[in-house]
C-alpha cells in the first residue's frame, strides 16, 4: 500500500514537470496559433544555463535566476527574431522554422559545452530524504511537486484575475477582436511567449539535478508534452494541467505495477518484456483513446 502511495507521488512529480512545459506550449498555441517545436530547446537552454551557473558559483540558489533568465530571454529573442514572422503563416512553415531552430540550438550547445552530459549537484538542504510517516521520499522531488503546484495556482490567478490574463483569455478565443480594441498585440505576444519560455526554463533547471543535462533532452520530453497538450486540449492551461497529471500518473503506474500484474499471468521474463513494451506505448494509447472519445481533447480551449 505504501508502495502505491509512493508511486502516485512519483507520478505526480512527473506530471508537474510535464505541466511546466505543456503550459507554455499550449499558451503559445492558444494565443498566437503557433506550433513551436523548439519549446524543448528552451527547456534545454534553461537546464544548461543553470548547470553552468551552479558550476561557477557553486550555489544552486544562484542557478535558479540564471536558468529562468536564460529560458525567458532566449524565448523572447526567438520570438522577436523568428516566431514573430510566423504568425498567421501556415503551420507547415512554423514546423520547419522551429525544426531549424532545434538543429541550431542543439549544435550550438555542443559547440559551447561539448557533448558530455553535465551534472548539477542537489542543493545540500534538499539532498536527503524526508520521512513522510509511511515511507521516506527524496526532499528534492517533494520540492519539485510543491513548486509545480504553486506555479499552477499562480498561473490560474494570473489568467483568471489579472488584466494580462483577461487579454490572454480574450486573445485565445477572439484574436481579431482583441487586436481591433487597440491592445498592443505584439507586446502581448512577446510577453506570453516569454512566459512560456520562462516556465520551460524553470522545468529545465529543476530537471538538472535529477537527470543528466545533455543535448537532445528537449526533444525527449517535447514529444511527451505534445501528448499532454493533445489530451488536455490545445490552448487550455487547465487542460494542460489535468492532462499532465493524467499522463504522469498513467505512465508511472504502468511502469510500476504492470510487471507485477502480468507476472501473475505468465513467465517472469516474458511478463517483464511485455510490460515494458506496453508501458512504453501506454501514453500514446491513452492519447488515441481520448481522441476517439473527444477529438478536441478533454478541455477544448480554442475554437
Amino acid at each position: 500500500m505504501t508502495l502505491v502511495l509512493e508511486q502516485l507521488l512519483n507520478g505526480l512529480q512527473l506530471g508537474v514537470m510535464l505541466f511546466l512545459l505543456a503550459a507554455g506550449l499550449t499558451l503559445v498555441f492558444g494565443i498566437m496559433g503557433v506550433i513551436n517545436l523548439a519549446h524543448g530547446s528552451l527547456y534545454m537552454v534553461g537546464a544548461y544555463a543553470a548547470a553552468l551557473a551552479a558550476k561557477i558559483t557553486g550555489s544552486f540558489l544562484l542557478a535558479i535566476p540564471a536558468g529562468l533568465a536564460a529560458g525567458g530571454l532566449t524565448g523572447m529573442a526567438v520570438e522577436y527574431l523568428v516566431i514573430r514572422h510566423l504568425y498567421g503563416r501556415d503551420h507547415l512553415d512554423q514546423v520547419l522554422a522551429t525544426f531549424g531552430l532545434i538543429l541550431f540550438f542543439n549544435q550550438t550547445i555542443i559547440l559551447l559545452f561539448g557533448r558530455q552530459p553535465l551534472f548539477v549537484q542537489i542543493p545540500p538542504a534538499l539532498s536527503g530524504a524526508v520521512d513522510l510517516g509511511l515511507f521516506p521520499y527524496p526532499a528534492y522531488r517533494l520540492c519539485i511537486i510543491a513548486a509545480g503546484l504553486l506555479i499552477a495556482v499562480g498561473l490560474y490567478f494570473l489568467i483568471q484575475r489579472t488584466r494580462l490574463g483577461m487579454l490572454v483569455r480574450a486573445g485565445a478565443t477572439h484574436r481579431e477582436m482583441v487586436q481591433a480594441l487597440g491592445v498592443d498585440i505584439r507586446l502581448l505576444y512577446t510577453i506570453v511567449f516569454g512566459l512560456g519560455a520562462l516556465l520551460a526554463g524553470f522545468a529545465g533547471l529543476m530537471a538538472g539535478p535529477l537527470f543528466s543535462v545533455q543535448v537532445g533532452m528537449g526533444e525527449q520530453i517535447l514529444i511527451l508534452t505534445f501528448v499532454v497538450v493533445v489530451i488536455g486540449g490545445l490552448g487550455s492551461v487547465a487542460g494542460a494541467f489535468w492532462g499532465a497529471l493524467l499522463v504522469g500518473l498513467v505512465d508511472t503506474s504502468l511502469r510500476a505495477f504492470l510487471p507485477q500484474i502480468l507476472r501473475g499471468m505468465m513467465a517472469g521474463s516474458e511478463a517483464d518484456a511485455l510490460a515494458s513494451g506496453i508501458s512504453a506505448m501506454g501514453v500514446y494509447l491513452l492519447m488515441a483513446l481520448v481522441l476517439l472519445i473527444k477529438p478536441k481533447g478533454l478541455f477544448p480551449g480554442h475554437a
Partner: protein
Amino acid sequence: MRKFLLPTLGLALLLAWPFIAEIIGSPALITLFTRMMILGLAASALNIALGFGGLVSLGHAAFYGIGAYAIGISTTHAISGEPFLGLVSGSNLLFVNVLVAMLVSGVAAAIIGALALRTSGIQFIMITLAFAQMIFFLFLALKAYGGDDGLTFRRRNALFDLNMRDDATFFYVTLGFLLAWLAVCARVLHSRFGLLLGGIRQNERRMQAIGVDTFRMKWIAFIISGMGAGLAGALMANLGRFVSPDLMHWTTSGELLIMCVLGGSGTIIGPVLGAFALIGLEATLNTWTEHWQAILGPLLVLMVLAFRGGLARIGGRKP
C-alpha cells in the same frame, strides 16, 4: 518549351550519372545519388498528403521505416527459410517485397490516419508525430528483428537477372521506380480525386457542403502517401541491405517535410528537387565542419522566412 527543357536535362544528367561518377573517380557518388532519389521519392509521397491534401504529417518516417522493415523481415525469412510467424514464407524477389512493403505501410497509414484525421491543424501534426514515435519504440524493442541493432541482410532483392549488387544497376532500378512513382503522382494530381483533394485543402467546409465525403478523401490521400513512403523505405532497405529503427527517427519526418517545402510542396517534381538540394547541402556542409547543423538550422529558418514556394516555382512557374 521551357516547361520540358529542365526536366529533360535533369533526366539526361541522371541517366548519365553513373558514367560521370566513374569518370571523375568517385563511384561513391552513385550511391549518394541513389539515396537522394529514394528520399526524393519519400518526400514526393509525403507531398500527396502535404502538398495536395494539406495534411501536415510529422510522422511519415514511420511508414518509411515500416516499408524498410517489411523488406528486411521478408528477406531474412527468405534467407533463413523459416516462415514469418510460422505462416508466410519470406521472399527475395524485389517486386513481391515492394508490394508487401507498400501494403503493410498502407495498412499502418490507414490505422493511424483513421485516428489522426479526427483532428486537424496542429493536433494532427502532434498526433502523427506521437504515433510515429510509438512505432519507433516498438521496433527499438523488437528483439526478434534486431531491435536497436537493426537487421542486416547480405543480398539485395532479385529483379529479373540483373546484378543488383552493382551500384550502377541499382541506381537505374531506383530511377525507374522514381519515374513510375512520379507518373502516379501526376495522375493523382490531375484526376477528379486530385481536384477534390485540392478543393478540400482550400476550403473543406465548402466541399462538405457540396456533398463530398472529405474525411474519406483525406484518408485515401493519407494511405496513398503512406504507401509511397513505404516504397521508398523498401528501396532504402535494399540500397543499404540494412534496416534499423534509426530510419523512423522523428528527425527523418522533419527532413522529409523540409525536402517538400524546399522543393515546393504541391508540385510534382518539387519534393525530388528538395531532396537533392537538402542531401547535397548536408553532404557538402559535412565536409566543411562536423557542426554543420548549426549552419543548416539558421539556413532553414531563413528559407522559411524569406523564400516561399520552393525551388520548383522559381521563375514564376505554376505547379
